[in-house]
């Protein structure tokens, strides 16, 4: 069962990579990167489920946080403002 789940998540990652490489506008690429960040959280969760070791959840939290900040920064850049205003 866990193997099926891994295969699903791998397909998800490759679909996101397709969108990142193909996307016509910069916004499309950023959507792909944002979704890929949340897929990584899924991977960390499954590894926590398999190994019963709790510090993989720390990695998941940090990854979600940094992905959120990166998306905000790129969207502010697309909006046409500087980072400081």
């Amino acid at each position, binding site marked *: 069962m866990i193997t099926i789940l891994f295969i699903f998540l791998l397909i998800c990652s490759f*679909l996101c990579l397709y969108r990142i490489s193909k996307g016509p506008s910069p916004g499309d690429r950023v*959507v792909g990167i944002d979704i890929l960040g949340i897929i990584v959280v899924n991977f960390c969760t499954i590894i926590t489920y398999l190994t019963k070791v709790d510090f993989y959840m720390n990695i998941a*939290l940090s990854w979600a946080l940094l992905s959120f900040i990166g998306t905000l920064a790129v969207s502010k850049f697309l909006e046409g403002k500087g980072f400081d205003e």
Partner: protein
Amino acid sequence: MREILSLIFMIVGGFFNLFGCIGLVRLPDIYNRLQASTKCVTLGTCLTLLGMMINGPLNSSLKGFLCAIFILITAPTAAHALSRASIKAGINLWEKSVVNKLKEEEK
């Protein structure tokens, strides 16, 4: 019993993730893509975390709870910021779109 329940939740979460990513590829426009992928991937991740929380040590269950709340708050916010920035950057809607109140207001 708990193992079977958690496996069911995780498989359903994986299906929702897959639907979100198929939507990311198939839909024609950045706004539609953002909508489908944000909804599906958020609920799929929360279901995967719930499956881990049911059958896991207490430490990782509590951290998973915090992670689920964090993703429920931040993923819609990131989608809102990105769509607003795309509107400001002048990326148009799909050509078969029906109505655009935002553009009518600006005229």
